[in-house]
């Protein structure tokens, strides 16, 4: 599959798209209505080149159809549900059929294999297991290869290192910032990474730079591979780097990538920077036709030295919306706003301060003091801070520190507050 001739791949993509569009039209009222609005019949999509006729789908559409509105199979056929945090406290839900799980395992097996994994590997999965797709996605992919899986999940760093040492872990799967944190802890524990069997790592779920790659590779004495995915499409396994480490090969036989201008929605050719739009060609449970990822990247079609014919996407270069990824968790400033408004006593003037301290993302929320919130007692203000922190942690699924600041000190530009200051160098 991965080295298929481009022409042949195009035929496969066309055949799969035709089926996917027909099924989506028949089974999912949302797609049917959207296409009817454009006066488009499923029969008019005859090849992959017709994809651009279809409307986009966004995260908002997923929220509007919460929880099961976009499923294309009877619920009895769904064997797994995953979710990611949403802006108004509501999650975006994705459902998989058993065939979908098979495809997911296959694309993750490709991802791990491209990074050098084999039947002999010991793969330690230090992504969180749970509603987040990272843990189970990597787990099933590793099992599909026949490697030995160490399902460590995230956290408990000293134990992670002990497992690496005692079990002879050869490959690590986690977020890049956690990999650096592990490296640092290892150093503090006086363990030399060269004594370990670790040779490679697959890192994703948050954007990271080439500079950070070199840092991880040096600190852990491994080769560090970037992997890309999102739960809306399948989870990790959408695209991944090969040994050339020169862009991430998109598994195009299952996920068709396009680049658009985020402002006009116009398709852009290969080589131009824009927003990545993905279409699932084979997914049964929840087909996604032209999902706007909001991730900015470039697609490259030049042949890769590894022999794979799949197009490559650059490392993600940014976002076309205000979403932040903090310790692998998606955070929108509007989530913070609804928490503050929900408390009823704070003004909606706030600012998110993101920094990377000791290689871990840190989120501080500055909240402007108001007369309502203010008290002459320190204790009451501390209770207030802790209350906001607790509400934020439950709404965002990531901890945040609250700092109370003087009224009208948060910078306003053109009457609109600047909501985010991201000091991370990524």
């Amino acid at each position: 599959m991965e080295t298929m001739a481009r022409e042949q791949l195009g035929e496969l993509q066309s055949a799969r798209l035709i089926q996917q569009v027909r099924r989506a039209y028949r089974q999912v009222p949302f797609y049917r209505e959207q296409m009817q609005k454009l006066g488009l019949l499923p029969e008019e999509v005859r090849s992959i080149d017709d994809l651009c006729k279809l409307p986009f789908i966004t995260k908002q559409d997923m929220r509007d159809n919460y929880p099961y509105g976009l499923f294309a199979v009877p619920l009895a056929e769904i064997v797994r549900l995953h979710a990611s945090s949403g802006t108004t406290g509501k999650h975006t839900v994705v459902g998989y059929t058993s065939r979908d799980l098979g495809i997911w395992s296959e694309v993750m097996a490709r991802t791990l294999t491209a990074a050098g994994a084999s039947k002999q590997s010991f793969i330690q999965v230090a992504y969180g297991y749970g509603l987040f797709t990272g843990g189970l996605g990597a787990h099933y992919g590793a099992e599909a290869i026949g490697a030995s899986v160490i399902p460590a999940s995230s956290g408990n760093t000293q134990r992670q290192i002990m497992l690496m040492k005692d079990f002879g872990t050869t490959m690590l799967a986690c977020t890049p910032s956690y990999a650096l944190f592990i490296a640092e802890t290892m150093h503090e524990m006086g363990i030399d990474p060269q004594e370990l069997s670790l040779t490679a790592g697959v890192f994703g779920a948050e954007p990271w730079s080439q500079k950070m790659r070199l840092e991880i590779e040096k600190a852990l004495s491994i080769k560090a591979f970037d992997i890309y995915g999102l739960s809306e499409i399948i989870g990790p396994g959408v695209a991944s780097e090969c040994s050339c480490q020169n862009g991430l090969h998109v598994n195009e036989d299952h996920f068709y990538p396009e680049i658009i201008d985020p402002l006009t929605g116009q398709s852009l050719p290969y080589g131009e920077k824009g927003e990545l739009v993905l279409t699932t060609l084979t997914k049964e449970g929840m087909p996604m036709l032209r999902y706007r990822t909001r991730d900015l990247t470039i697609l490259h079609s030049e042949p890769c030295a590894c022999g794979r014919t799949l197009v490559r996407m650059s490392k993600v270069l940014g976002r076309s919306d205000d979403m932040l990824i903090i310790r692998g968790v998606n955070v929108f400033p509007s989530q913070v706003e609804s928490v503050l408004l929900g408390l009823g006593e704070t003004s909606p003037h706030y600012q998110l301060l993101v920094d990377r301290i000791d290689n871990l993302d840190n989120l501080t929320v500055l909240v402007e003091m108001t007369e309502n919130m203010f008290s002459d007692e320190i204790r009451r203000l501390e209770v207030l801070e802790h209350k906001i922190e607790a509400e934020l942690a439950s709404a965002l699924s990531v901890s945040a520190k609250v700092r109370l600041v003087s009224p009208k000190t948060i910078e306003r530009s053109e009457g609109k507050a600047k909501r985010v200051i991201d000091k991370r160098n990524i």
Partner: protein
Amino acid sequence: MIIQQISVFVENRPGTLAEVLGVLKEHEINLRAMSVADTADFGILRMVVNDPEKVERILRGAGYAVKSTPVLTMTVDDTPGGLLTQIEKMSTAGINVEYLYAFAATSANAARVVIKVDNLERADRIVNGETLSTGVGKEKSDVPGFYW
């Protein structure tokens, strides 16, 4: 007696306290008593002034988060154990003290403190007696130009 205390929110970084004091100086406000309570991130400047309502207006106008709170004030003998005598009366009565600070200027043989407690009126009766607490309004203080 029960008086109104003005509290101001100040961030814990260089210059913030000076800014508030600058505003007070500009309006020729004299501080009779003050304290700063702080955490790592912020502090609360609490003060007793001549005309609390006016000061509250001024500071609010200058963009500060301000609060006016009733607190207790009492004189204590300026001798060792002077404060203890008064505090013991309150603790015996089960009254909880939130915070306490002293006045800047008082007469020679008595000190005056500001005290925030959880049961203000009861504490006032205990330490100041029934008669004194009725003195609401413009009572002359022992400091020239300052009245309650």
